[in-house]
């Protein structure tokens, strides 16, 4: 079963255009995508904005966010033209204040006023689809390329349907609220069903975001299948278990229980397994999503590598810890650069196919809330 799956996975890689074919297409019709940011320059931006954020007790964070976003957008050029981030700090600040209030309510209900938790959770379930729609729309609206902004037209109802399609998440939430999980088998089944359906859920969410996003009158098209997502997640589970098994064998074989610092020795390989599984999922999902997106005349090729990503994550973590955090800008820049270097945009016909339409403004509150609650919906 296990071998078979990995084998399938390798086959899936081959299903994509082979390497020469791919390179040829990129060479002939690829548009140059380049990231020119440098760690040294970004360090100054990062530290100055962090300092101002700390001494203003967080109020400056809206400016800090805009400055950092602008840095990444401005240094990312496609066919010689940089992307633009258009949001203004005051708009972001407004959203942040709303998000901070909601976060405070959530935090205090989970930590201090636990009797309020059920109401807060239900309210959270109701506003979550709205938060997602608003934030994606905000990001699209304030992202521009060649003087034309992106758009996101997903509605609350559509978002609600995508997130709660099988009713699994609400079921788990409601079950938790009313403490049904005293019945262990019910909880077990609910979580198992959720775990199995999760890849399709992720796929549908990505599909929703891609197909409702448009640029110059063309909506994104998405052809990735849920089966592939499922295999990626399954392999990641095997990776995690594999590392756990190896650790157990080593510990038993060398009779290492009770040795000094034994806890740390046990945790290291398990942590390595977790990092690698995480890198694997990130890499495969990112690659598939981009490779299966079409936007008008544009196609994308994403060629991230799991091992290289894992190496990046590990070296980043070591660098950040060893430097007490001062290498965070370096880590962010090199990761961004690696991702850009492995993303290719192919123009099949002409950019003239894109035509601008009327634009409208979107409230910033949604975008801020997702950041606060750390829901990374990036594709």
């Amino acid at each position, binding site marked *: 079963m296990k071998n078979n799956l990995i084998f399938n996975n390798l086959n899936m890689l081959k299903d994509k255009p082979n390497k020469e074919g791919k390179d040829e297409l990129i060479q002939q019709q690829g548009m140059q995508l380049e990231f020119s*940011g440098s760690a040294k*320059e*970004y*360090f*100054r*931006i*990062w*530290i*100055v*904005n*962090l*300092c*101002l*954020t*700390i*001494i203003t007790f*967080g109020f400056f964070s809206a*400016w800090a966010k*805009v*400055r950092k976003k*602008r*840095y990444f957008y*401005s*240094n990312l050029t496609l*066919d*010689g*033209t*940089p992307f*633009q981030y258009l949001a*203004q*700090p005051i708009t972001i600040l407004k959203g942040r204040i709303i998000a901070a209030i909601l976060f405070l309510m959530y*935090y205090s209900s989970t*930590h*201090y006023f*636990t009797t309020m938790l059920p109401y807060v959770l239900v309210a959270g379930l109701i506003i979550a689809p709205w938060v997602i729609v608003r934030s994606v729309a905000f990001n699209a609206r304030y992202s521009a*390329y*060649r*003087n*034309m902004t992106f758009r996101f037209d997903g509605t609350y109802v559509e978002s609600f349907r995508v997130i709660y399609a099988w009713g699994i998440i609400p079921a788990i939430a409601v079950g938790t609220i009313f403490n049904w999980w005293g019945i262990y088998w019910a909880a077990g089944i609910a979580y198992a069903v959720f775990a199995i359906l999760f890849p399709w859920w992720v796929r549908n969410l990505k599909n929703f975001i891609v197909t409702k996003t448009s640029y*110059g009158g063309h909506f994104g098209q998405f052809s990735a299948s849920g089966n592939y997502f499922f295999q990626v997640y399954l392999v990641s589970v095997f990776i995690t278990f594999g590392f756990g098994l190896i650790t157990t064998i080593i510990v038993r074989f060398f009779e290492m229980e*009770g040795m000094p*610092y034994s806890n740390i020795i046990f945790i290291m390989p398990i*942590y390595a397994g977790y*990092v690698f599984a995480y890198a694997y999922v990130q890499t495969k999902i990112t690659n598939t999503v981009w490779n299966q997106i079409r936007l008008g005349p544009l196609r994308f090729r994403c060629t991230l590598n799991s091992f290289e990503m894992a190496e990046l*994550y590990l070296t*980043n*973590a070591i660098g*950040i*810890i060893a430097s007490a*955090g001062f290498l*965070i*800008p370096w*880590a*962010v820049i090199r990761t961004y650069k690696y991702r850009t270097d492995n993303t290719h945009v192919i123009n099949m016909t002409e*950019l*003239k196919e*894109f*035509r*601008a339409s009327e634009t409208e403004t979107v409230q910033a509150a949604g975008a801020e809330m997702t950041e606060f609650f*750390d829901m990374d919906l990036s594709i």
Partner: protein
Amino acid sequence: MNITSTRLEGTYYDGKIPIARPALLVFDNNEVTLTSGDTTLTYALHKLHVSPRVGNTDRFISLSDSGQYQCTDQPILDQLPQEVRSEGLVAWFENRMSVAVASVGIIICALFIGYFYGMPLVAKSMIKRIPIETEASLGNHILTWFDDSQWFNESHIDQDQQGSIMNKFNKLHQGLSMSPNIKLEFRNSERIGPNAFALPGGTIVITDQIVDIAESEEEVLAILAHEIGHAERRHSIRQILQGSFAALAATTITADAASLSTAVTGLPVILARTKYSRDFEREADDFAFDLLKRNHISTEAFASIMERLAKDSGSIEKLSFVSTHPVTSKRIKRAREFNNKESD
């Protein structure tokens, strides 16, 4: 600086299709003329808006129709109307290495002061506003949870011994400001083993296992004196508050690295929380030593039971900076030193 007759080479985007057109911008008094291919457009100078400076990347000038002009960054652009004025100053700071170096110093000082003085001070003043009933209900919640989930079972200690300990315990905390709220609960817990806890609100839980391991009631009281110290100083609720502040601060600082690794963002919070926890343990130890002395109990009782606990659990001293408690041998040493000093 006079901007009249200045010429800027760049790229023009009409805002209708994403095509880049090479263009030239010529300034003349209050007007500016754009030439691109056969197109010539004229705009009023005060209606232009320039995008903020970002590193050394190109900047964009919004024209009063839907058009936009892209050119390399140059000082002359600062004389035109700015899209976001406040960012100009920030960009000025960002471009100076001296400001960056100063920022490092300010951040380190701010974190240092906030961490050692600010957060404990704020937490202290905040707990004055938290009614003890709210805190007690949180404590009851925790105890109920431990009871329901079988972490705690009914105590096997016989009633006489419980009564005897209870009496001495009540005498021990008599006269303290938290005294009306301090309660003692006996619980059996094979899973937790010999231990004692001070819950928010003043409830102290002691496991049967610690009563069993103690060779005298004085040893049990020594442990309880330490827990009374936690209760009197409201350490549990302060730990929750200070931990929340630390988490908030750490999230702000490591926000950029959040997507890179959760371990990186989790680590500073763990370090901060355990440091506060060790401070509280030390404070509770000191409190206990004084309390024991006032009740004519030797701190040697504390030292001896701690020694036995360490031996029984067979644990090796953990790395002190990730531990929630100070190194046990140090605590034992401090108890003995206190004892010697008092008997001199």
